């Protein structure tokens, strides 16, 4: 286990939502073009630094999206994909919906960050539909984001409220995309998913062995 001890990062406590967002933000390479999904992923924008020079895309037709609008900045014609009023940064551009989704679908975004119900060992993503028979399905741009970005990062709690792992061998919820997720950021660990299985990059408030006990699929510790 010596490689484990030298390579696998750990912290004493599980991460809160903001700490996790901060971690994701730090992992985004300078100059990247990024789409942040609705909900928890939006928090990432609070931790991007000016030096990183990240350009945010919103699928309703804009590159160069700025922070949420407040007070006099609020403009009903300038919203993000979550329909929240936002601002425009210098160097922004607007385009229509087909051009906007071509940016995603054509593989031009470096990273998109999404929430999830479940992620499978092979990187399958389920984040749009509970599959409950009376639920009204609504997919929005989730499938395009999952399929189109070069890297798909997922942010989620590792466990459901009932203590069941959302990182699973096979998704039981309806899929959003097949084999699309490359990293999973959770309160308890960061996982790298890929054809070789699931690797743990770091753990938060638990050891590798404690983490393995929570997740019903074989994990590998990262080696440097």
């Amino acid at each position, binding site marked *: 286990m010596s490689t484990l001890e030298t390579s696998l990062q750990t912290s004493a406590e599980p991460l809160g939502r903001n700490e996790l967002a901060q971690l994701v933000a730090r992992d985004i390479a300078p100059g990247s073009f990024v789409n942040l999904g609705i909900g928890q992923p939006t928090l990432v924008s609070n931790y991007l630094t000016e030096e990183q020079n990240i350009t945010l895309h919103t699928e309703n037709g804009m590159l160069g999206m700025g922070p949420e609008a407040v007070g006099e900045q609020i*403009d009903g014609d*300038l*919203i993000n994909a979550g329909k929240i009023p936002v601002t425009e940064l210098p160097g922004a551009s607007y385009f229509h919906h087909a051009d906007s989704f071509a940016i995603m*679908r054509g593989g031009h975004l470096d990273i998109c960050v999404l929430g999830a119900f479940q992620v499978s060992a092979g990187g399958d993503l389920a984040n749009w539909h509970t599959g409950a028979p009376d639920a009204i399905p609504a*997919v929005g*741009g989730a499938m395009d984001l999952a399929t*189109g970005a070069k890297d798909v990062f997922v942010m989620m709690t590792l466990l459901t409220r009932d203590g069941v792992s959302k990182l699973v061998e096979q998704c039981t919820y309806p899929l959003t995309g*097949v084999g699309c997720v490359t990293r999973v950021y959770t309160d308890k660990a960061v996982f790298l998913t890929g054809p070789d299985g699931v690797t743990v990059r770091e753990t938060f408030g638990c050891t590798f062995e404690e983490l393995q006990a929570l997740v019903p699929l074989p994990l590998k510790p990262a080696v440097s």
Partner: protein
Amino acid sequence: MLQFIDTVGEAVAGIKDGSTVMIGGFGNAGQPFELIDALLDSGATDLTVVNNNAGQGDQGLALLIKEGRVRKMICSFPRQSDSWHFDAKFKAGEIELELVPQGNLAERIRAAGAGIGGFFTPTGYGTMLAEGKETRFLDGKWQVFETPIHADVALIKALKADGKGNLVYRKTARNFGPIMAAAAKHSIVQVSEIVPVGALDPENIVTPGIYVNSIVRVASAGIAEKVA
């Protein structure tokens, strides 16, 4: 032939029962509320409506659904905290839903305007939204066959039109307007301002007038709405 029309009522008067109507807008941005209200007043029914959402609150498309004018919705995101009219109709089995990933929705609308009979895209592959659809392995990925969405009419909101029907939009209110104008047989556009021919820079026109049939000026349209 391009027409400048005085009222939203006259602008939508020709929309027949059973039509497929595209309605621009994403959330409230770019949504042509006045044209939708006029469509409601016109009494046209048995409509298939193409919009990203399925109405919000008690206005616009939501009212059209509430009043039972919409037979079928083609959209990507019908379920919202305030989409109660759609929710009720859907649960009562009184409205049909074709749920389309948003990028497929946009690309299928674009295909209709561009004369593309169908296309393969990776979006949706392996999901329940691609069930029963043809798939093919192309460019190293499994892809799904999707077909164009044509429409009889498009209702669109733009910022300005010139005398040739050329349009410019405002910020993210542009969204579906340009592709719907091209996809529909007849495009009806509400604008806040009509400017003389030559007043728009030819480099900056977003929708060329060839895609526009009827223009009506609506005083409030395109002016930034302040959201509480």
